[in-house]
């Protein structure tokens, strides 16, 4: 039963990883930008949430109503200024610039908020509570909620991209930005919208992780960016639902690893990632990983 429990926990944490991964996947799919500051921005969102809760006393769960718009605006502004300028230079420049941002944000958080880890709403019944099935399986309400949020976000993204006006624009610009430009779509603005959407998911990921575990300045790269990337690669690049599949595979691998030896949780996840990288390179290449 312990193994069944591990698998259930893994599937549920997969939802959290999908929440990390879908923004990374969206930015690459549309702008061909691999945002190395992705995880650090999620930590920033988490810290904003902590600040917002402390200052305005909004209920913890509703803090996202304030944090998500803030991050979306930040995403739009960052895309229209720094990232677009880098894109105009070269793909290499976007990597250098987002890596620079990542290091600056991480050390900035370290400088202003110390290396102490912080949680969000750690005393909430929802965060600590769980229900049990039988004697071995215990399911945390929080993980279930995060999984539901992840599925809702993916459904929302799918609907947004396939049905809405901006979704159509984003797909058009992702396909051929010059042609879209000729047809009257300002691709810079559309890129900004896509970044705003991606940053909104980053905000949810940061808040969710702050409730699930603790945030500290290094969480952004050590955990969020690397897990998001592993989920994207395992699930198949460029596919939204692939990020959920990838997140679940990564989560299950980690939980099974932890079941074998508690210190092997991270290693098991990365080894599964490497196995996928070795065995399914054709899948990776065909979905645009090799576009240079």
């Amino acid at each position: 039963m312990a193994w069944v429990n591990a698998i259930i926990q893994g599937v549920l944490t997969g939802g959290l990883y999908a929440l990390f991964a879908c923004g990374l996947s969206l930015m690459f799919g549309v702008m061909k930008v691999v945002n190395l500051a992705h995880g650090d921005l999620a930590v920033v969102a988490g810290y904003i949430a902590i600040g917002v809760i402390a200052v305005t006393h909004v209920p913890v769960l509703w803090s996202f109503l304030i944090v998500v718009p803030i991050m979306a605006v930040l995403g739009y502004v960052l895309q229209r200024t720094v990232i677009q300028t880098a894109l105009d230079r070269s793909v290499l420049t976007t990597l250098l610039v987002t890596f620079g941002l990542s290091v600056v944000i991480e050390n900035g958080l370290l400088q202003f908020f110390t290396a102490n880890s912080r949680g969000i709403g750690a005393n909430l019944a929802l965060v600590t509570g769980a229900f049990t099935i039988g004697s071995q399986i215990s399911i945390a309400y929080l993980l279930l909620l995060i999984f539901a949020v992840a599925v809702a976000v993916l459904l929302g993204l799918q609907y947004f991209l396939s049905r809405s006006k901006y979704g159509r624009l984003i797909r058009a610009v992702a396909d051929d930005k010059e042609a879209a430009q000729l047809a009257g779509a300002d691709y810079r603005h559309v890129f900004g919208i896509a970044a705003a959407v991606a940053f909104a998911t980053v905000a949810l990921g940061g808040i969710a992780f702050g409730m699930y575990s603790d945030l500290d300045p290094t969480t952004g790269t050590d955990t969020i960016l690397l897990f998001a990337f592993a989920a994207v690669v395992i699930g198949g690049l460029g596919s939204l639902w692939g990020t959920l599949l990838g997140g679940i595979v990564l989560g299950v691998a980690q939980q099974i690893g932890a079941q074998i030896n508690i210190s092997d949780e991270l290693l098991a996840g990365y080894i599964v990632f490497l196995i996928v990288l070795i065995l399914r390179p054709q899948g990776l290449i065909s979905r645009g990983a090799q576009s240079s």
Partner: protein
Amino acid sequence: MSLTTETTARTAASFRVTRSQRNVAWTGAVALIVVVVFAFLPYIVYSGSTSILVQAFIVLTLASMWNLLAGYAGLVSVGQQAFVGLGAYFVLILALHGISPFAALPVAAIASGVAALPLWWLVSRLRTGYFAIATWVLAATIMLIIEKFSSIGGGTGLPLPGFAGMDPTLLTAYTYWAGLAVTVLSLAGIYLLLRGRIGLVLTAVRDDEVAARSSGSRVGLARLLVFVVAGIGCGAAGGVLAISQLQVQPSAVFSVQWTAEMAFATIIGGLGTIEGPIIGTIVYMVLQQTLASYNAWYLIILGLVAILVALFARRGLWGLVDERLHVRLFPVGYWLRTGNAASRGRRSG
């Protein structure tokens, strides 16, 4: 004016292809003098100064290797700390078996280069951003694997043995010379590599990958070689780090901060020139020493400067010098000079 129109407009006889516009023999002579002066420093200055220089040697070696990867081969690796860590651990493992850490240093460097082969096989399928994060994941994975072996210190690391009974002054001097040797060999190695066939292939790939491939350049092989050389260089720097710190700690040697430092120094100095990392390392050391009492501030400022340079002065500080004076201290490219003295000529590489 494009090269083609230029060539058709003039007769071939009026062109001259040179490595440099000026004689570079003096660069070699000055470089030799600089190395000799540096080699004699331990006899003159206090050990505090040499230990700062050892740090500068490590950063310069790392930055030059990262420049080779990103500036010449287009491979942005965010996982070079994997090789820093491997180099440090190879020195530690050999030292635990009774070999002098100084004798272990070259072995550790070669071993890091050998380790680069399977790692290249894993990440070479990915390009640009995905290559970057994949190298990062690899570095994290290697650290997790090394932490599993308690005989080499597990998650906490070990002090480096092999220095018992050694005179501290002599140890400082030897460490300094080891750092100097690693740096000089790295720079010379990169210079020779880029002046040779590999340099030509890399330049061709940078200008037009499809054209380079279709004219028979062995692009994959050139990139593999660059990755291995960078592995050797970063491994050697990691070995020097272990010797200068007298201990090896997994989270310290496998820290992504190493890659941040090498990348920032290179970008600020000038990506894609041999001189760039040298200038960048000087800027880095000055900032780091000035802001030493302000914790993480030097990295924040370096990062911001690197972002601004990457966006607005893409060829870095050396690029600004080069644009005005047309100087290359270590020319690895070619100048196409026209017969017309008024025309400035074109540079490639």
